């Protein structure tokens, strides 16, 4: 039966091609729309996650209390062992040790004397290991305005505005000057590899990015890190999984009052994040619901149209003596098949488009040429498990429903009238 119907569908373009195209496009739009909404809603906190909170964050209890002050003196020690342990216990998470710190950059003149100085916020992140995903999180390749990415621990990225203010170019040396983890003087020489602009005035005002190993050396933080950020390998925050992992980790820590014991928090635990996330999720759900409803209505309509299209054909079949019930059942069967094929191809198409937009992103920067907002300039879709089935609701159900409704007409047709009808 299925093979027969399939043959019919494949050979009779009237019966199948138009509905198939419509369903495919409709389902693809639904999947894309859903992924897009997820992406746009997620964007509200993607930036926070990438720059500051991670999906999960491990730090010392003392550091957690004073996060805002970038207290390197309260950093985690034994960070590589801890990172390894975390990686082994939670393989679904990509762990990224980082150091956030403050200090001063001193630019020398030709005699090596102080020419100019400026305060900076520093980020020591894994720039150099082959598999690192940190540069992407900081959007560095896109943010690079001059020069290139650092190739070793002696090279740094400066924010462009800061570099311009001090008339510094890629290739120029500078000295970082600050406090080590113990509070001693931190001195470290770097070369400017390139300059970046993030689009956030606060950050662009004065920041520099170096490799984690350089940060550890400069700040005398051998095997230490201010914080270890965890990111779901999927790229997207899973609140429930995050909470589970956090509970597991924290309960495995010995109870006590050691203020330097590691503690894990999820992105939701950061001030205000939980509410914000619930809120954006709710808005996202409403949008998705509207989408699915709209698409269902359209495909229902397509089903109706499909039934109408074959008015003549059913007449002939009735005239030939085919049973009404049989025609109706075959109509539904075909609708199911077309809906299924359309949903599969539509989902594939939608996922393909969504995947493309997730990887490449859609540059909406044209609307705001001169500026370069950190994240919003490139909006990305976010593919989630839902995208694999959501298109089937309108694709399969609506199509079938539409056909079933319009197919009712089959029963209304009078065999005696048929020839008259067909002659006309």
């Amino acid at each position, binding site marked *: 039966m299925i093979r027969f119907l399939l043959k019919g569908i494949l050979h009779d373009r009237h019966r199948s091609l138009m509905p198939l195209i419509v369903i495919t496009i*409709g389902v693809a739009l639904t999947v894309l*729309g859903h992924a*897009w909404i997820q992406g*746009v809603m997620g*964007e509200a906190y993607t930036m926070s996650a990438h720059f500051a909170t991670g999906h999960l964050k491990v730090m010392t209890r003392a550091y957690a209390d004073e996060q805002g002050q970038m207290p390197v003196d309260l950093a985690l020690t034994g960070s590589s062992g801890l990172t390894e342990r975390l990686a082994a216990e939670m393989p679904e998470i990509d762990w990224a040790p980082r150091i956030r710190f403050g200090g001063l950059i001193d630019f020398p003149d030709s005699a090596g004397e102080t020419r100019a100085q400026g305060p900076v916020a520093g980020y020591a992140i894994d720039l150099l290991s082959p598999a690192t995903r940190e540069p992407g999180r900081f959007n560095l390749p896109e943010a690079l305005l001059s020069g290139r990415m650092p190739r070793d621990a002696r090279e740094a990225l400066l924010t462009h505005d800061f570099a311009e203010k001090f008339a510094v170019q890629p290739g120029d040396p500078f000295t970082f000057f600050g406090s080590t983890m113990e509070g001693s003087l931190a001195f470290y020489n770097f070369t400017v590899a390139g300059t970046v602009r993030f689009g956030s005035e606060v950050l662009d005002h004065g920041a520099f990015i170096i490799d984690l190993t350089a940060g550890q050396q400069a700040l005398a933080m051998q095997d230490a890190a201010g914080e270890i950020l965890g990111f779901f390998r999927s790229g997207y925050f899973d609140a429930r999984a995050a909470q589970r992992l956090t509970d597991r980790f924290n309960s495995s820590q010995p109870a006590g009052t050691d203020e330097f014991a590691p503690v894990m928090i999820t992105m939701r635990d950061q001030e205000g994040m939980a509410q914000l996330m619930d809120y954006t999720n709710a808005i996202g759900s409403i949008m998705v619901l509207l989408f699915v409803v709209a698409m269902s209505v*359209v495909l229902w*309509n397509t089903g*109706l149209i499909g039934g109408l*299209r074959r008015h003549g054909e059913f007449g002939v079949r009735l005239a030939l003596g085919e049973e009404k019930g049989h025609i109706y059942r075959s109509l539904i069967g075909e609708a199911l098949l077309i809906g299924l094929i359309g949903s599969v191809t539509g989902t594939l198409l939608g996922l393909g488009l969504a995947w493309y937009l997730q990887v490449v992103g859609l540059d909406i920067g044209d609307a705001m040429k001169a500026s370069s907002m950190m994240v919003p300039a490139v*909006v990305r879709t976010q593919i989630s498990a839902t995208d694999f089935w959501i298109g089937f609701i309108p694709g399969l159900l609506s199509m079938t429903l539409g056909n079933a409704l319009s197919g009712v007409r089959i029963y209304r047709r009078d065999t005696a009238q048929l020839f008259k009808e067909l002659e006309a």
Partner: protein
Amino acid sequence: MLALKLAIRNLLGAGLRTWLTAGVLSIAFVVMVFYQGLLDGWNLHARSTTREWEIGGGQYWHPAYDRFDPFSLQEAHAPLSPQALELAAAGRIVPELITQATAYPDGRMVNLLIRGIPPGQQLLSLPTAALAADSVGIPALIGRRMAASLRLQPGDALLLRWRDRSGVFDAREVTIVGIFRADVPSIDQGQIWLPLATVQEMTGMAGEATLLVSAPDQAPLPLAGWVFKDTDFLLKEFTEVIHSKKAGSSIIYGTMLAIALLAIFDTQVLSIFRRRREIGTYMALGMTRGQVIGLFTVEGAAHSLFALLLASIYGLPLLHWLGTHGISMPEVADATGMTIGDKMLPVYSAGMVLFSVAVVILSTAIVSYLPARRIARLKPTEALRGRAQ
């Protein structure tokens, strides 16, 4: 006119199908209007609140002042000229003196900015009248975010340490006389408001200010020694955010519109296929192909009229309700530093609505026209017999 009448009659005749299509189109339209209204509303609200609470009609900065570099404050202060004093006395400008300080809430150390403002000022919405209280030593005003992060209540004391213009240490307790709720994080986070005269006395900068806030209706004046920053400059980053949000959201309703248009396209293809005889008749009666194409295009485009009708039936009350009740935002939506009210009230401007109507009608007309072009390839004789090539 006849074409339109015919079109409407035909569409009504199609019954459920027409209403389904028009329904989807109307959803797309309502979402489109709502989304744009929401962003416009946010934009308007944020701009007006920031003006009311922080920037007035612009600010005059001391040339050394850099709002992102607290160290610039050491240099960024100057006495008010007689002209500026006159303006201040007339309530045309509000001088602010800003200095760095350290607060010690229960043994912790927190860096913050002390902002001095005349208690009697009327220009900004800050409830500075509370600072006129002389029952407490030094009255201080903070925002709710700051109150939450320092865990302070009205009546609580807070120890501040600062250095005056010559670097002399001073430390005193201030009393929180009020906690204000403002949707503008930049006057709240990391800031504490004290009477201007007190800050001038504390820092040894009598009669000096860091910046001057201009009245909203005050044209920029050439004040010697001060640099005027207009509201566009002060709101630049916010404007960029709104731009990007607009671009991002247009994709959402654009996709929605595409879904609805898909239905119209499908309908058009079918009706042209099913109504060959009718088309043949029109041509036999002397209508040109162009006229017939026009007829069908109008018919397809008429879906948008139904959609607008539907949209005004359920959409108007809905949008109106949303416009008056607003979308309440979570307490902390502004944790990111953006100005967001407790409620986002969409604002629907005539221009925006008309634009949306035009987009819907035009796009519907285009997708109606595309399949109708096939008519041009029909031969009247064949069409009359119900055959299509």
